[in-house]
């Protein structure tokens, strides 16, 4: 229940935040909404030397609408994503997914930047981000760079961000025919498996959460999709996957869910 002690910094700018990150040499963590990090710290499964609270940095907020894409500040909460008319209009899968994360209290604190930077293998947004082929903008001591979603998620809770980089915003292309389908045993829970499908004519981008150490693209299902054969394509959803087993579900069941949910996501996307 009680985290270990840590130093606490509250930088006013991204540059300051990066400098503090560098100072602690990998032993500091960024604190945004804190709803992945603080629970881990309370169980003493994480014990960083320092927390860098970026909550005051105004430049990390804001939703910007452009013709083909939407840029969302890293500190935008799930609740704000869920209720944004811009996002609902231009990229509804993102708004709908955000509306289903955790519960209302979690959504009021959890952020999109935190979600993609944390890369939780049960997280909803990373899978959707992957299926949208979004981009994350990160700032580090060497300046700013753009990381494609497909390059961002590396392994269990590991991204391609370096220790001293911060996600400052994410950018998602606009997409209409898309859907995210999430399966859990009980409300408020993490997904056991979730499937995101973005359909574009006769092709689809499909991503899964809960089936590997990170969110993954269902490449075989994508390759099999012709534009109208959701069931057939979904049959390949778990190809090449070896989903983990835990108290929530076995690997075999996760693979089965992947096939079911990919079909449902494709059908929902196609129906839009």
């Amino acid at each position, binding site marked *: 229940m*009680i985290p270990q002690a840590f130093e606490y910094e509250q930088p006013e700018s991204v540059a300051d935040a990066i400098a503090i990150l560098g100072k602690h040499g990998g032993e500091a963590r960024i604190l945004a909404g804190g709803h992945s990090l603080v629970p881990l710290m309370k169980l003493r499964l994480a014990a960083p030397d320092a927390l860098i609270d970026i909550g005051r940095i105004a430049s990390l907020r804001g939703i910007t609408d452009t013709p083909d894409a939407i840029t969302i500040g890293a500190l935008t909460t799930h609740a704000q994503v869920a209720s944004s008319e811009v996002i609902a209009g231009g990229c509804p899968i993102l708004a709908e997914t955000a509306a289903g994360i955790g519960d209302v209290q979690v959504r009021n604190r959890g952020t999109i930047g935190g979600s993609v930077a944390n890369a939780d293998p049960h997280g909803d947004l990373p899978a959707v981000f992957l299926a949208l082929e979004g981009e994350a903008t990160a700032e580090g001591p060497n300046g700013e760079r753009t990381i494609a979603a497909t390059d961002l998620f590396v392994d269990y809770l590991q991204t391609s961000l370096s220790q001293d980089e911060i996600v400052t915003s994410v950018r998602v292309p606009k997409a209409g025919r898309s859907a995210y389908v999430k*399966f859990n*045993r*009980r*409300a408020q829970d993490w997904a056991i498996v979730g499937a995101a499908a973005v359909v574009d004519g006769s092709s689809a981008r499909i991503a899964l959460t809960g089936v590997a150490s990170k969110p993954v693209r269902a490449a075989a299902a994508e390759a099999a999709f012709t534009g109208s054969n959701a069931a057939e394509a979904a049959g390949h959803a778990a190809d090449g996957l070896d989903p983990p087993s835990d*108290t*929530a*579900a076995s690997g075999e069941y996760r693979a089965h869910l992947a096939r*079911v949910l990919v079909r449902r996501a494709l059908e929902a996307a196609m129906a839009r």
Partner: protein
Amino acid sequence: MAIATEQGKGIGQAVHRKEDKKLLTGKGRYVDDLKLPGMQHMAIVRSTHAHADITGIDTSKAKGMPGVTAVLTGDDLEFAAGVPCASNPTGDMVHPVRPPLAKGRVRHAGEQVAVVLATDRYAAADAAAMVEVSYSPLPAVITPEQALADGAPKVHEELDSNVGLVLAHKTDNVDDAFAKADVVVKHTIRNQRLIHVPIETRGVVADWNTASDELTVHSSTQVPHFLRTFLAIVCGVSEAKVRAIAPDVGGGFGSKLNAYAEEFIAAAASQKIGAPVKWIEERSEAMLATCHGRAQDAHMELAATKDGKVLAMRAHYVQDYGSYLQMLTPLISQLTLLMSPGAYATPEVDVTVTNVYTNTVPTDALRGAGRPEATHAIERMMDILALELGMSRTEIRRRNFPQEFPFTTAIGLMYDSGDYEMTLDKLLELSDSKDEFEKRRAEADGRGKLLGRGLSTWVEVCGFVPSDVARSALGLTPGGWESSTVRMHPTGKVTVITGTSPHGQGHATSWSQIIETELGIPFDDVEVIHGDTAFAPYGLGTYGSRSLAVGGTAVHLAATQLRDKARLVAAQMLEASSDDLDFEGGTFSVKGSPDKSVTMQEVAFRAWQAFDMPEGVTPGLDETVFFDPPNCVFPFGAHGCEVEVDKETGKVEITSYIAVDDCGNVINPMIVDGQVHGGVAHGIGQALYEGAVYDANGQLLTGSLVEYVIPTAVEIPSIQTHRTVTPSPTNPLGVKGIGEAGTIASTPAVVGAVCNALGVRDLDMPLQPETVWRAMQEGGAA
């Protein structure tokens, strides 16, 4: 002078609760809200091994941490006795001793090994993490199967094996009946290990005054008086110097029907350091350190005629005790044995219970305490028998109900009153006909859902317990009575002091309703004191759906005695004979001369002044009653559940739940409904979501509310409650209990519905989506 009383808040009314305002506004006082000057916070170091010898405890680093007052181990604290067990079903069962702080050996992961006392809880947590314990691991037995295997390592070396107790009851003609039967069905029903998860964990503030040797313990408990008695015994202090207080308690469900090591440790630590000690259990700690429940397998056989008449039952229950006996551990499976016949008149029974120690958290009472296990097993077997015979599940039950009450079962329990056909018929009236249901089943199939429905006809034993029965039949140390004082003050208000210890059940409201009906005193003029041993004469606490039947009766009897005395005083005041007085609306009046009257308030004032009292009548209006019930009570009913199962994922949704219950006369129907809602939701949790799981090394995998899943409002359906009223002949209020009924009735109704949807005989709880999916993969044919 008559004071008009506002009637309408007496027995039978759905009165809003007087407990609510403080709870709604955040002014409740739960144990963690209590702050005493100089109070230290206790954090507990717990075993990380399921079975091990402690080879060393290094407290040096911890002692040096900031804010630390003391670090104590089993060598530092003296106790006069071990953690108490008050249940000895045979009278000669050996009770292994559990020291409050482990000495030498630990027997489950989570057992208390050392404690840190510090000035605040953050410092205590830091220091606890710095205590270094070295262990020499021992081979462990995690399941009863392992514990029963030849050559299994023993959890308690002084015992011959890991079998803690065997109970048996066999009637004379069981084997004949099985031989003669047209059909025999056989199945093993599993009742999985559960964790209670009251939203408030346990907690205690112990305050030992070392100058006067008086000990005051505030504890989130269901049994403050038992706690006081056991504190005296275990900590070696005069019981007259101990005060135990249950503050507002945030739910118990049986988990706080106990006396725990932490309560004794906190008291002893307070004595040692001369300051109050607070311990508040963290949730992950609660999963490991508070008793678990259920963990019982039932190997069942029913022998029946082809017309569905059950001739005999064989039941072998295997109960996992866990590693130690807590206060009522042996009682639980004993209650299963006693209720094994369920709502049926099965004439021959052969029932045994084998109770086994394992290196896991001890088990004890969990809402229903042994009766859900019995009901689930027999209800599943009735469904299986119906399937085997091609009979309807309602018809087979009807054919086996007892017809006349009181009814004594083959086990020897006398069910006080009942009419099981009545509640079943009412359930059927409220449910769709078979044809309507089949239409909906076909429609659901088109949506990719399997529709199913299930029912349970249940009866249970509660209102614990006649003291003779407690001793002779159950082997319990304490009796089963309850006490109440009803006291009327000179200014006309009433205080009720009850030995019950409510933690959500609304006794202050219900007891006030009894007073309004019996004495004509307005509901709002009644105060109810509970949970403090300084006030109540002795109370056996709140559990086992006993408070109304036993505690409420004590209130009624004390009120009746008080009214009888008031009548004598009123007669004196009115210069009439006490037989010539009417009593109505709180006023005594002379028959035929209604203007010659006195109110209860006026009588109370006179009794306080005590002049010109009738011959032999003492001053005051203050009556105390100890009520020992002549029998337990037996509520009953029929529940029906409808589910939709997603054909692809196996996820179960309950689409309808109807409860028809008979708990005798009802004091507050709103409160009764609330108990049914909560009980049913708890049972749904067991049926579909919950299960405490250990790994092969005895580590609890379901160690937090992330892995141990209790239902949210989304998972629980709307629960429709209906009632019939068959008064109990056992007490003057005619009431039975209802607190556990919902939990007892619901698991078989839900599981039966899912089995009906899939067309299978049985499924092991919890029916998580994957379990159901696998069952569908394996083929649905029954």
